[in-house]
């Protein structure tokens, strides 16, 4: 179904490297090499050099990517599940229930959600669980809207009416007729949600509100790099560049899928 295409290959390569590198490098991401503080790139054993306290940049990059992706995928899955459940229910039941459910979605859409998430972070502490949940809760709205639209359109299609006339119970209609027909669109939007979540997580980390020490993420790495950029720009360029590349590739693939299914 998905022919090997450059952006997808890039994404998979990044994921692979992020998973495999810890086994190949002699250092962990938080190990301090007292002999090589601020080592420039390609000098000695550290391929990309070390940061201002002597931690290997490449190891940190790999670790940061892992965390960021983990958060992104988990949050995207949360938004997928919640979004589909909400949207499919609203679309299928229709009428007043749908109006009420969608009104809630519209209301939430209007909120400056970033602020609410930040508020939640501040109030309930900075646990990584909250990061997952918080971000997922932000992103489910679009999924809910899209799924509801699809389900409403499908509901009126004759093949659904025919299934009803054939005596198929609603449960089975939902499972066997409706869901398979929205799977494609849902997948496409899932692919598009992941970069959104990556951005949100990085943003929070950048502000000091997301993933916390000793863990690291791409957002934290960018912040550290930005703080230190006059001394060694590589600290900014590496994570920043990787982040952008990841986002671009995910977006391209996601849009390709979306165009295919709509």
């Amino acid at each position, binding site marked *: 179904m998905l022919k090997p295409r450059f952006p997808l290959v890039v994404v998979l390569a990044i994921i692979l490297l992020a998973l495999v590198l810890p086994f190949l490098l002699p250092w962990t991401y938080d190990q301090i090499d007292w002999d090589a503080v601020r080592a420039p790139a390609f000098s000695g054993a550290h391929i990309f050099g070390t940061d201002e306290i002597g931690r290997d940049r490449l190891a940190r990059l790999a670790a940061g990517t892992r965390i960021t992706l983990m958060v992104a995928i988990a949050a995207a899955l949360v938004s997928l599940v919640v979004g589909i459940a909400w949207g499919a229910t609203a679309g299928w039941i229709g009428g007043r229930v749908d109006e009420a459910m969608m009104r809630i979605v519209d209301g939430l859409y209007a909120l400056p959600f970033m*602020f609410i998430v930040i508020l939640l972070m501040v109030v309930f502490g900075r646990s990584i669980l909250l990061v997952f949940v918080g971000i997922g809760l932000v992103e489910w709205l679009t999924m809910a809207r899209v799924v509801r639209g699809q389900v409403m359109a499908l509901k009126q299609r004759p093949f659904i009416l025919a299934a009803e006339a054939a005596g198929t119970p609603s449960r089975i209609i939902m499972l066997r007729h409706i869901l398979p027909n929205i799977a494609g669109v849902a997948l496409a939007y899932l692919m598009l949600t992941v970069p959104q979540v990556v951005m949100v997580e990085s943003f929070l980390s950048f502000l000091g509100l997301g993933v916390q020490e000793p863990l690291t993420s791409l957002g934290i790495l960018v912040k550290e790099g930005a703080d230190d*950029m006059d001394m060694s720009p590589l600290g900014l360029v590496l994570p*920043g560049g990787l982040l*952008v590349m990841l986002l671009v590739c995910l977006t391209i693939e996601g849009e390709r899928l979306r165009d295919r299914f709509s």
Partner: protein
Amino acid sequence: MLALITRRLMTAIPTLLVIILGSFFLMRLAPGGPFDGERPLDPEARAALQKAYGLDQPLWEQAWLYLSRLVQGDFGPSLVYRDFTVSELIAQGLPISLTLGGLAIALALMIGVTAGLFAAVRAGKTADQTIMMAATVATALPTFVTGPALALFFGLWLGLLPVSGTGEGLSWLVMPVVALALPVSGAIAKLTRAGLATVLKQDHIRTARARGLSETKILFKHGLRPALVPVASYLGPAAAGLLTGAVVVETVFGLPGLGRYFVQGALNRDYPLVLGVVTLYAALIILFNLFADLLYGWLDPRMREG
């Protein structure tokens, strides 16, 4: 049209209330108040402060008190910046944030719509593909990456533009606005092109062509307005995105805008400040959404009945 505006305002007020009250209770429920920080106070001073800020009263009364003051335009005093009321802080920061956001949207619209139009007219050719690739890359550029990158390149290396603070003249605006506008302009470019590509396939374009009109006339008179509909519906979320982007940009470039106050307030548990900013931003976004809806109605008359 009037019915639409009234209806929107009717839903806006409860939404705003929910946001205010929700944030209010959230902050109050948070463990640790603003006084649990680094400077421990003796019980007397603490009691006095608590009384002054009304923190010793039951929650509901505090809420009511807050709301009634809010309606009069009194956001309360800042708990951290002791010498200022929140209204004063907002008055200081709002113009900067608004300028940043306003310029960014204007820039994004200008670049985005033009690029999108250009690409759509040359659909399928290299110009189109290049522009669309550039637009996709632009949407994936988070402000907290481009901001520091721009500062690094134009500020530190080339020394052309100021890296922080507002300084004299207007040159301080350039980098922050560009960093803010880039992702939005990419999104607008894509939406414009997609919108136009869809519209140009529709029947009424064929009718216009059948009338023997020139391609330019067809594009601008018959094609442009419906093509911009997706852009108009995007403006609401775009504004929300810009507000959050502004937070980053203000932090990175050291600008005394509302965003920075918000972050500081959140980190320091300065409730009134945080609440004030949240309320203001929510109101701004709702207003902006209303404006976007009206624009939508002008672009596509079928939406006017709501």
